[in-house]
């Protein structure tokens, strides 16, 4: 991945930038010669921070060792290079006398034998007609020679000059890849180059500002000790790692110090296995030379969406330990019940279906497995229970399918059931006769006590209204608990500082009510994950992944009656666009798993559909990009939109908070930004990849839409909604709130814009959407 570089438009008037690289280079050269710029050593394999003095000694020793190995390898490399120079390249150079114009040769090949290349001559030029074109004169000054062949002085030479229309002029735009969904990209800890901020700007000064945010450094601010490529690096590592006994971080850092333009320390630390895969002989194990990589324990899985340790998901990870999180997989209970007929019926003795009929089983044999009571014996059938998990793990050859079918067909006489569903000619199956089927049912029957039976059954499903009330009560109690904790901390603070506790609490309540007019605000603090654990979900359940957010989604495995489980809305169709809708109020999109009445899963275009599912179904308004009066390109509508209607989603690179900070520092210098912050952490940057929403401009006075972070299928996404009814061809603008440096940068731009004279046209800028919190 590469770091992106926002662009600025060319300043009006003359283009002078291409001749002033000297000034920038001189400043850069001056500073870099005085002080080589290296970043500090990073603790990648060491858990403790290494002291700088010890580190410097290790680096010097490692440098000497590496240089010794490098010189030998470089000699071998030089021999190979000289060999190629003396053979292949020399042959190419010697071929000069018979050189052929490759362009004409290939053109002749394309034209074929029958045609020849047209002859080029200026005599073929047409003469200008008087009224045909707007023709003027173009002159050049002869300097050497300044006379014609006849000796006449010729200072100015004139030739006709035709005028060619330029055509439509579009605002400048950086190429971007259109996508429909956001793509997660890793952090880029190393800047590939110092971006071009304009002529005359000293790169050294900008380096001081940016280097703190890039722990792996910036490419190009230090020189390599000598030339190195992948092959030399591979040879060097194999030779050096064989005898190296020091710290692995010092080793990789020394490689970085010698060749800072090759890779960073972090990249060097992971490069050797890749190089061995490219150049090593078969069977070579890179970990034999890097034993420290064996002991590095993989990090645990962050959540279900970003699993990094798959063993943890199976609850048998040897590194992170065993976690008894038994999920309740079967919401309708763990057991099936069925009725099994009993043999020893004199009336049916004469009606056996075959020699292997189930009636040939004796009652004594049944009594050894089942324990029918006297009433069941009189009724000639016994009630048995099948465990669902056992059936789920059973192979089909052992009769799992037959048991499953029988559970729902116990009313059929057993002989007819076997005749219908058991294949007597199936050689792979173990169940091939009536008696075999009966024995299968007997063996699958579980001895279930009344207590366990009760435990395996779910409680009665509460109505939607009850679940909603329980959920709201739960959220309210959580909010009260948070307020109580906050008040307790304020009292402790007041006691320590000698302030009035009641006054502080009153101020906090007032500030909280101003910020949040809702009694309960469902604000997610972490990305939504699915919880799978035993026991109820609440704030004290350690194994509950939803403990921090305080809300369980439909993806969780908790009981449907869980008071923390989001119940969804109970609105009529098409009504989910006001605060009365619980999903809309909580900034969650409706979901058919939780919402039953609003028809958010309807696909018929004739019926009224839910209005709170735009991002889930990716139904967006059609838009186009065109020149804007505000700045550069703008976003315009192709369909009308009602108030509060979903228009489009903002997509791009899904980056972390630190990465957003790094890119924001660079974008601020260009006074434009495509970063949109997400409340639960991270941001979306649509500079390199995105959709048309990236062209929405900022308008603080009359924005036409507003941005909203919605929970869509458990994922936080940013959507644009109409502020009022919008017609076709209206420009989509929105107001964003900057924070910190971005705010300052934008204010400077705004002030600059305002200070311009109204008669002078404004300079063209790229569209500058947003950073929002």
């Amino acid at each position, binding site marked *: 991945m*590469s*770091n992106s*570089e926002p*662009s600025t438009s*060319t300043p009006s*008037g*003359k283009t002078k930038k*291409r*001749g002033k*690289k000297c000034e920038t280079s*001189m400043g850069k050269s001056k500073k*870099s010669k005085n002080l080589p710029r290296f970043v500090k050593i990073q603790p990648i394999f060491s858990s403790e921070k290494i002291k700088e003095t010890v580190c410097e000694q290790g680096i010097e020793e490692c440098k000497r060792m590496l240089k010794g190995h490098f010189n030998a390898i470089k000699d071998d490399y030089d021999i*190979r*290079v000289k060999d190629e120079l003396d053979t292949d390249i020399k042959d*190419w150079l010697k071929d*000069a*006398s018979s*050189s052929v*114009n490759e*362009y004409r040769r290939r*053109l002749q090949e*394309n034209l074929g034998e029958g045609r020849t*290349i*047209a002859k*080029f001559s200026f005599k073929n030029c047409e003469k200008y007609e008087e009224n045909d*074109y707007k023709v003027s004169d*173009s002159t*050049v000054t002869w300097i*050497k*020679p300044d*006379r*014609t062949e006849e000796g006449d002085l010729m200072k*100015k030479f004139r*030739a006709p*000059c035709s*005028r*060619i*229309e330029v055509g439509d*002029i*579009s605002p*400048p*735009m*950086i*190429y971007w890849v259109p996508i429909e969904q956001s793509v997660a990209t890793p952090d880029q800890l190393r800047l*590939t*180059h110092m971006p071009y901020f304009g002529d005359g700007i000293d790169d050294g000064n900008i380096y001081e500002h940016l280097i703190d945010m890039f722990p792996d450094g910036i*490419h*190009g601010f230090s020189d390599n000790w000598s030339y190195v*490529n*992948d092959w030399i690096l591979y040879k060097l590592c194999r030779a050096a790692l064989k005898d190296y006994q020091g710290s692995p971080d010092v080793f990789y850092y020394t490689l970085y110090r010698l060749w800072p*333009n*090759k890779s960073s320390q972090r990249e060097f630390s992971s490069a050797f296995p*890749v190089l061995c895969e*490219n*150049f090593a002989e078969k069977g070579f194990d890179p970990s034999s030379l890097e034993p420290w990589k064996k002991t590095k324990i993989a990090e645990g899985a962050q959540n279900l969406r970003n699993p990094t340790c798959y063993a943890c998901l199976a609850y048998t990870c040897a590194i992170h330990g065993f976690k008894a999180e038994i999920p309740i997989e079967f919401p309708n209970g763990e057991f099936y019940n069925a009725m099994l007929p009993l043999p020893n019926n004199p009336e049916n003795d004469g009606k056996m279906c075959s020699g292997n009929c189930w009636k040939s089983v004796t009652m004594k044999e049944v009594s050894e497995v089942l324990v029918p009571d006297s009433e069941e014996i009189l009724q000639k059938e016994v009630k048995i229970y099948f465990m669902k998990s056992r059936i789920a793990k059973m192979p089909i050859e052992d009769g799992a399918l037959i048991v499953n079918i029988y559970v729902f067909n116990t009313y059929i006489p057993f002989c007819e059931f076997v005749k219908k569903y058991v294949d007597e000619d199936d050689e792979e199956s173990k169940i091939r006769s009536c008696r075999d089927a009966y024995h299968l049912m007997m063996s699958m029957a579980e001895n279930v006590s009344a207590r366990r039976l009760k435990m395996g059954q779910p409680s009665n499903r509460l109505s939607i209204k009850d679940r909603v009330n329980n959920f709201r009560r739960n959220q309210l109690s959580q909010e009260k608990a948070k307020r109580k904790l906050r008040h307790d901390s304020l009292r402790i603070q007041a006691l320590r500082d000698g302030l009035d506790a009641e006054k502080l609490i009153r101020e906090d309540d007032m500030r909280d009510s101003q910020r949040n007019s809702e009694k309960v605000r469902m604000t997610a603090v972490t990305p939504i994950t699915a919880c799978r654990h035993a026991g109820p979900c609440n704030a004290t359940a350690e194994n509950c992944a939803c403990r921090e957010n305080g809300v369980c989604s439909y993806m969780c495995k908790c009981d449907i009656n869980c008071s923390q489980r989001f119940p969804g809305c109970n609105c009529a169709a098409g009504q989910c666009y006001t605060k009365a809708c619980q999903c809309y109020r909580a900034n969650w999109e409706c979901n058919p798993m939780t919402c039953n009445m609003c028809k958010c899963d309807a696909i018929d275009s004739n019926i009224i559909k839910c209005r709170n599912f735009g991002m889930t179904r990716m139904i967006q308004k059609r838009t*186009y990009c*065109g020149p804007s009066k505000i700045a550069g390109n703008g976003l315009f509508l192709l369909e009308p939109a009602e108030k509060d209607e979903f228009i489009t989603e903002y997509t791009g690179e899904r980056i972390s908070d630190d990465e957003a900070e790094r890119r924001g520092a660079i974008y601020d210098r260009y006074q434009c930004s495509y970063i949109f912050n997400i409340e639960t952490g991270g941001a979306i940057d649509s500079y390199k990849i995105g959709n048309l929403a990236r062209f929405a401009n900022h308008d603080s006075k009359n924005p036409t839409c507003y941005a909203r972070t919605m929970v869509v299928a458990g994922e936080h996404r940013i959507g644009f909604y109409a502020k009022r009814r919008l017609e*076709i*061809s209206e420009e989509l603008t929105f107001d964003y709130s900057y924070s910190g440096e971005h705010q300052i940068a934008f204010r400077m731009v705004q002030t600059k814009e305002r200070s311009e004279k109204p008669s002078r046209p404004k300079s*063209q800028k790229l569209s500058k959407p947003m950073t929002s919190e």
Partner: protein
Amino acid sequence: MEHTKKFKSLNLHGFDRSTEDYGKRPFVLTAKLLEDQKKAIYGCAFNQYAGIDEEQAVATVGGSFLHMYSVPIDINNIELQWSCNFPTDKSSKVEREESLFTVTWCYDTYEAENDRNPFKVVTGGTLGHIYVIDYVSRKLSNRLRSVGWEINDIRTCPANSNLIVCASSDQSIRIHHIRNEACLIVIGGLECHAGTILSVDWSTDGDFILSCGFDHQLMEWDLSVKQVKEHLERACKALHQDKINVLTQSQDIPYVSKGTMRKSAVSRNIPDKEEDQLLELHRELIPRPSCLLPIYTPSSVSTDMHSDYVDCIRFLIGTNYALSKGCGNEKAIHFWRFGPPKGEVENRIHGNVLRPKSCTTKFRTMNVPSGSAWFIKFAVDPRRRWLVCGGAGGSVMFFDLRNNEETNPTHTCSVGSRTVRQASFSTCGRFLVLVTDEGFVCRFDRVSASVDAKDLAKF
């Protein structure tokens, strides 16, 4: 007068082409003129499709002007034949003006088959437009438009004279057919250059493209994949008709200005609903042909060859070796190629197949003493002997490609006091033309070893 007589007495071009060059002074400045527009000249290009014995034409671009010169063989002069001006409409509120940066020549095979003039001059600059100009009628044949910002380099495909590749400041590389407004291939994305792309070049067989730019990286893009080749063949076949601009870039509504869209929106309400639905249904069923093929991943990437901006990259004709020039702190030209050194094989198995290659082999480094400024493009001698590079202060540096030990210029001369922007050799190898920031156009002639040294010293 005296210069002309001395030039005739030298008889520089009366010898056999296989004669060796004069070692101490292989090229001599024979002509110099100043374009009166008083603007920097950024690009120059000889017509690479002219034969050895035909007239040699050189085009220069700078500011909003394109000048066309002929280089006669018997007189030491550069004769201005015609020029073109690309003025911006001043009534428009847009403050950007056209400033041309690069130029190249193309050969339109369809026009040749119909006995019309096939030679086209292709140029581009600040606005991102590519102008295809017919050199006979001096009119605009086509205007190619798909680049979002400045065009820094345009190169003609050696294998297909209708295709061009252009490097742009919008961090993308686009492959155009000169008869189609939209581009055929766009190269860009997360894996592409993170900064402005300054230079591109084709390999001789047209299978690879090398690119470089602000981000210190060199990238190689593979066009020999079956999918890409078929796409180009299909597009070239469709354009080999009597129509131009038949392929569009997107199947959606094209880029239009706001006023036009408003009119279209109003006109959509005039017919009744049934006709409107029928039109929409028709458009959905039969989409217009789309010719855009995106390429997102390079086949090779080098991040360790250069440590500052890379502003020029060229293939050695007929080989897979490359020359690239760094500027800023790194004032050097590197001679290198992708791949491990000779005798070594790189195993591309398992996950490494999806990763770009990164191993390079460097053969030589040539120092450019005054090469700090960026946007200076060098030229390689078609007779495979010299490498010419301009620099700041009007210096012109010659490097001997046959002397592998020398890292400094073989010799240096001066043509002015401002930066020399580009050098260009004629395909016959006799002439070298340089352009500078001051507006000078300088002609150099090759000197044979059999030329009298005394006469040369007097010139």
